[in-house]
């Protein structure tokens, strides 16, 4: 497995350019996912059709769900002379044939390189009464899929959110960040449990985890309603979860409608969940209900009960920055050592944040990298191995090559089902993470132990 990867560590300057086995993909898939979190929306990819097929494919493989989207299907002619005609034709055809409430257009490296002016093209398009076309620029040569998600969130705010001058003091907005529908449900449940009505978008619950019933719905029941998104301009505050995914949209909403944004981490782990709950408590003057206190206490109970199964173990974690930061923090809470923390998404603040966490915890010798790739990570592991890998499906090759257990977290997970329905956020998510991590290590202990050391009770 991965035998062409050199066994010896490479000299420092051996790699200065390009990516080998990346830990990121390009912007539009994030924008497509965000757009699927609007009810009645058809995402539209303004580029050549290969992008759209690839992005739909990636989403379907991760969620085991349909991921509908249309494309401008550029040809060589359009690539030279501009894609305006393609987009106008597409908008006309989509409304006539597929009848969405809204089309959310994103771009690709093709339409960005030729410089198509999307707002102007939209203005010149035939849009039926009461329907919407919104857009976000998502150049693939900048940032990552997380940037694309963020850009579409910002686009949703820019086009739809409105302030009517009478703010609703009890209402919160939630920007959940690039997480699974299972996480979105859990975040919403926590806020609801605290008695605060909320508007969440993007909201892929009911869309990317939809039930199989007796009829096929091209636009499933889930997703944030356009009316609610509009109304988010009247909320008291925006809980902005994940700096990379959500902060730009929150800032835009603040500038446009005066709704203050509260920057938070995606609530993975005890501390990040505590922070979300405290923000809601303080922001709305509500009490934390007994039910959440019980949930929290169960997590602490479990951490105490099981700590010896994972304490002191070294972990390599890789994935998207908004998930990696609180996850690494939770691993530290568990007494584990995040030995390597890598994201493919650019941004030096990632390294700064994680290094700060290492410092606070007194962890030495751990490494963090933004804009890294799995080839880097594999080389580091060859230098000094770890006990556990946590990351997406692409990590399975390193896991096999180096015989390290892998816990699947993040995007994409192509080789296991059910995970998008199950939260890793909130206190419930803590329990699930503890279970997955602990079980992975125990399975490995069972596999490796001699007959005489094989234990009934662990």
């Amino acid at each position, binding site marked *: 497995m*991965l*035998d*062409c990867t*050199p066994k010896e560590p490479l000299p420092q300057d051996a*790699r*200065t*350019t*390009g*990516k080998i*086995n*990346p830990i*990121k*993909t*390009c912007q*539009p898939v994030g924008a497509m996912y965000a757009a699927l979190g609007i009810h009645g929306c058809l995402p539209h990819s303004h580029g*050549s*059709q*290969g*992008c759209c*097929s*690839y*992005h739909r*494919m*990636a989403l*379907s*493989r991760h969620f085991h769900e*349909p*991921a*509908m*989207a*249309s*494309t401008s*299907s*550029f*040809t*060589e*002619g359009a*690539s030279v002379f501009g894609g305006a005609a*393609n987009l106008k*034709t597409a*908008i*006309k*055809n*989509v409304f*006539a*044939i*597929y009848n969405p409430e809204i089309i959310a257009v994103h771009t*690709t*490296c*093709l339409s960005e*390189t030729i410089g198509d002016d999307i707002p102007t093209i939209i203005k010149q398009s035939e849009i039926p009464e009461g329907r919407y076309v919104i857009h976000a620029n998502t*150049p*693939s*040569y900048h940032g990552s899929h997380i940037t694309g998600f963020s850009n579409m969130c910002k686009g949703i705010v820019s086009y739809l959110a409105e302030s009517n001058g009478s703010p609703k003091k009890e209402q919160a907005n939630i920007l959940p960040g690039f997480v699974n529908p299972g996480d979105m449900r859990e975040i919403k449940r926590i806020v609801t449990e605290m008695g605060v009505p909320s508007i969440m978008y993007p909201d892929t619950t009911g869309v990317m985890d939809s039930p*199989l019933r*007796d009829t*096929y*719905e*091209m636009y499933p029941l889930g997703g944030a309603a356009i009316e609610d998104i509009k109304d988010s301009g009247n909320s008291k505050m925006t809980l902005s979860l994940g700096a990379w995914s959500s902060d730009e949209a929150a800032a835009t909403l603040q500038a446009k409608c005066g709704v203050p944004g509260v920057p938070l981490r995606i609530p993975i782990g005890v501390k990040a969940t505590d922070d979300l709950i405290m923000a809601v408590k303080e922001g709305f003057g509500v009490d934390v209900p007994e039910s959440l206190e019980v949930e929290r206490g169960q997590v602490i109970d479990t951490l105490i009960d099981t700590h010896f199964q994972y304490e002191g173990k070294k972990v390599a974690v890789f994935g998207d920055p908004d998930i990696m930061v609180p996850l690494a923090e939770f691993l530290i809470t568990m007494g584990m050592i995040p030995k390597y923390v890598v994201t493919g998404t650019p941004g030096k603040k990632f390294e700064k944040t994680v290094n700060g966490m290492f410092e606070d915890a007194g962890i030495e010798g751990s490494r963090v990298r933004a804009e890294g790739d799995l080839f880097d990570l594999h080389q580091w592991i060859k230098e000094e191995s770890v006990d556990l890998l946590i990351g997406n499906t*692409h990590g399975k090759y390193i896991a096999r090559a180096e015989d390290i257990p892998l816990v699947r977290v993040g995007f994409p997970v192509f080789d296991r089902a059910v995970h998008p329905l199950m939260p890793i956020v909130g206190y419930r998510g803590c329990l699930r993470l503890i279970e997955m991590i602990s079980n992975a290590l125990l399975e490995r202990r069972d596999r490796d132990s001699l007959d005489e050391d094989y234990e009934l009770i662990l």
Partner: protein
Amino acid sequence: MTMTDVNVDELLAPMPDKVKKNRRKHIVKKDVSAGSCPQIEANTRTVPGIITQRGCCYAGCKGVVVGPIKDMLTITHGPIGCAYYSWGTRRNKARVDDRTPPEQIYSAMCFSTDMQESDIVFGGEKKLAKMIDEVVAIFHPRAINLCATCPIGLIGDDLSAVAKEAEERHGIPVIHYNCEGYKGVSQSAGHHIANNQIMERIIGTGTEKVDGKYVLNILGEYNIGGDAWENERLLEEIGYTIGSTLTGDSAYVNIRNMHKAHLNLVQCHRSINYIAEMMETKYGTPWLKVNFIGIDATIDTLREIARCFGDEELIARTELVIERELAAVTPEIERYRKILKGKTAFVFVGGSRSHHYQFLLRNLGMEVMVAGYEFAHRDDYEGREVIPTIKSDADSKNIPELHLEPDPGMYRPPHLHLKMSKEKYDELVASGVLNDYKGMYPDMVNGGIMIDDANHFETEELVEIFKPDLIFTGIKDKYVTHKMGLPSKQMHSYDYSGPYTCFRGAVTFAKDVAHSLSTPAWKMITPPWEQSKTEQR
């Protein structure tokens, strides 16, 4: 509704007039009484906004043809996405063999120049050259592929110059493919571009001896789920030597010697017929359209290959192997046939399987009512005889055509490749066995529909009309189909199963299809409280 009653115009009714007019030409109904195949429009541009299943030229070149070559290090020059999505997502398996050790297999890795804004503004040639230098120093590959993506052509990066200079620096072949995603109208353009470069730069450059009395290449076989290995097992047992497969589990070092084979077998006509034709012109190598999907189809194929060489011993050995394989699988096939008999299906696949699998489904007692290709050309639907009448349009004109001459040193007349007399060879050609493909139409059921570049709307409508028992399609449609209450099997990735070829593959396929129909959950869609309501009413 019976199949012959389907009114295609009604099917398309809600579409805008312009779209309706366009799409009407892409749908053909099989009518035995009309004789030959009506003309179908294919390989034309996709209607914007229609929700097509198609991909791009890069996918056809890198993803399909070039990517599987295991000992070539393939760099995608572009932003990260293209390389990322074509990384490990097609199941073209590769393994170590006596010519390719494990440390020289790169096909499971993803290499991208990861272009940034500054590369778009100032050009990416230097970055690409630097990356080549670095991967050569780290991996020492035998040869390198460079694949272009959308922005490359627009910003004017000269891949050919970068490749040439890198070749001089490193002394290994560096082969470039101008397979920008916007070229052509589908994956198909990418096949053609890949074929051209493989033909010009790799095939014929090998000087190693290829042993074997009857040496075959298998063209257009990508070893999805191990298909190629099953074909090879069978052929080797009969007594053939496999020179190289294009490109499933193939190695650069083997492809170089492909001109030494005696016969080219063509499995996927769409993606590789260019090389088949060009090798016929340049080296005189004859080609035979084969099909290893389906038991009867495999038997016919094995017999035809033997007939091409006309060796009695080979023919006898062929019959022996057929008899043995058939005996081994027949009881199991019969068991599944009982479950599958009378079931109907739709098949929507890329450019060849929609035809091939009809043979296997028929063996299992199933019938295909609607069959569609994403990106096939008219010859794949109607047969190669229509090729002279195909007009290339503005979207395909820019795909280069190579015009080759017989190689002065290496050309041998085709009958010598097959070790037979010219008369006997001419007879074989005249009987339509060699160098021909009759297309999908002759094998469609009467009243069945052939549909080109089927979109989401049409698929939904056709399901409503025909109510098939099962749909064979790809990942984008799979879960849509499930929500419609229909079982679906992925016909590109085989739902991570396989191989599906030859005799044993047929059993695996039959089992997988039977399971997808018989899963108990299909009967549990309506909750019990809804059932009691219905009963009360």
